[in-house]
């Protein structure tokens, strides 16, 4: 057997690396590079405390979460429905593959002006951008999930008398739950990116707005603090989906085995 470093020691080394990085940053700032350009960890920590204790940050977090969350839900709904339909219609799926592939490779952020043209300014175009950002991940994963359902399973249900609709309800839907969850975990950071980019361009509040207004005011501490908040939210969102997703989708986590939940 190969000896491996125990977990606590790996964690310790990771902490040391982090400490060296933050310490170096703190030390360099104002000595060699002006704090204006790179801020410094102590200022970011101070600002974080300030924003949370004064409550200043909460409306911005809420605004971004609303856009990202609603966009993710709509993107999931559309992606799952399309994924099931094309997963069950292989010939149609193959026919559309080049078109879908092309659409997937397109930089979807570039669609922001188009989305604005369609929906005007405000909440709706920002949600629409998040839908665009998340749809494909959900679609492709759902379709892969449907295609991975064993033919024997479907055949055995059909012989027992199941209609096509019953096969979808009793076999397909439960089989794709782990695929949907995995896709949502991948899509959650994309949803946040989509929401923040939209806010950077047209937001009047939210974390994206905070990033532009801080940077514009030469307040890099504010920018970095916002980025820290975004990162933490992203991590929490992924964890929440992994922990509570199975129950929300009607499966107990222990029956998912090997899927999204087991990875956490």
């Amino acid at each position: 057997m190969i000896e491996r470093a125990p977990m606590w020691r790996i964690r310790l080394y990771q902490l040391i690396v982090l400490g060296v990085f933050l310490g170096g940053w703190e030390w360099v700032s104002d000595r060699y590079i002006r704090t204006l350009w790179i801020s410094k960890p102590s200022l970011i920590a101070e600002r974080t405390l300030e924003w949370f204790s004064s409550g200043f940050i909460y409306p911005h977090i809420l605004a971004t979460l609303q856009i990202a969350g609603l966009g993710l839900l709509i993107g999931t709904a559309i992606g799952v429905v399309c994924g099931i339909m094309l997963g069950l219609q292989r010939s149609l799926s193959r026919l559309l593959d080049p078109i879908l592939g092309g659409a997937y490779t397109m930089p979807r952020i570039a669609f922001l002006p188009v989305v604005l043209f369609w929906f005007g300014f405000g909440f709706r175009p920002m949600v629409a951008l998040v839908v665009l950002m998340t749809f494909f991940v959900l679609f492709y994963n759902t379709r892969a999930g449907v295609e991975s359902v064993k033919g024997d399973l479907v055949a055995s249900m059909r012989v027992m008398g199941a209609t096509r609709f019953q096969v979808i309800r009793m076999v397909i839907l439960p089989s794709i739950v782990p695929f949907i969850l995995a896709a949502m975990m991948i899509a959650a950071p994309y949803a946040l990116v989509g929401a923040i980019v939209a806010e950077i361009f047209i937001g009047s509040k939210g974390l994206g707005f905070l990033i532009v207004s801080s940077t514009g005011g030469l307040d890099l501490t504010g920018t970095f603090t916002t980025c820290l908040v975004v990162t933490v939210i992203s991590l929490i969102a992924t964890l929440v989906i992994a922990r509570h997703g199975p129950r929300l989708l009607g499966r107990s986590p222990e029956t998912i085995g090997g899927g999204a939940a087991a990875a956490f």
Partner: protein
Amino acid sequence: MINITGVSKSFEKDGQKIDAVKDFSLTINDGEFVALIGPSGCGKSTVLNMIAGLLAPEEGVVEYNGEPVTAINTSVGYMTQKDSLLPWRTTEGNISAPLDIRRVPKSQRAALVSQAIEKVRLGGFERHHPDELSGGMRKRVLLARTLIYEPDTLLMDEPFAALDALLKLVMQEELLRIWSEARSTVVYVTHDLTEAISIADRIVVFSKRPGRIVLDLPVELERPRDFDTIRSSPEFLKLYNRVWATLRHEVVSQEEASGEGR
């Protein structure tokens, strides 16, 4: 009654057309326990799939109770070697699946399911998921699920092939015990000659591909059969040797044929 007349079916494999069965005919009477035996790839499973309506013949006709099979045949129960249990359902949930499909009222389901669980001796494992059960237990769940809606005909495609030899014996006995009460028609595909003779009323031997019938013999051993003694009885050995002589020839020439293909 199952009436298969002049049926042909082929498959594409690596761009080549392979005949699974060609001009194949077979009649199976109600209540008969028939074993289909033959070398691997001789079209036994194709025949079962056609009776179940999962495959349509290219030529000829498959009739079930006088009606041609043109769609999925829901009067049969089909148990394959592959494990087709739903992994997210418990033992109870899996056994109850056909009842859910048939919209049997909830009040009746529980009673039927617990009866079925008792029949296959799975008491105490009602709430277990398939991955918490042993191979033999999973087969029992499959068996209970197949029997619970009382299909007229059971199609069994090497149902116990994945089990070890001892467990296989136990499951064969269980099957016979349950069948002796239900008395449905059984079409049992196997390539285990001892198994075929021990459980069936009639043995149909397939040729190598494309499958034809080369031998069709009744098994005149008394029921209920005692597995401990039956296998050393002179009738059994006579039958075994008779069938083996034919089967051996087919297996050998199938082997040679697939050797030439390479």
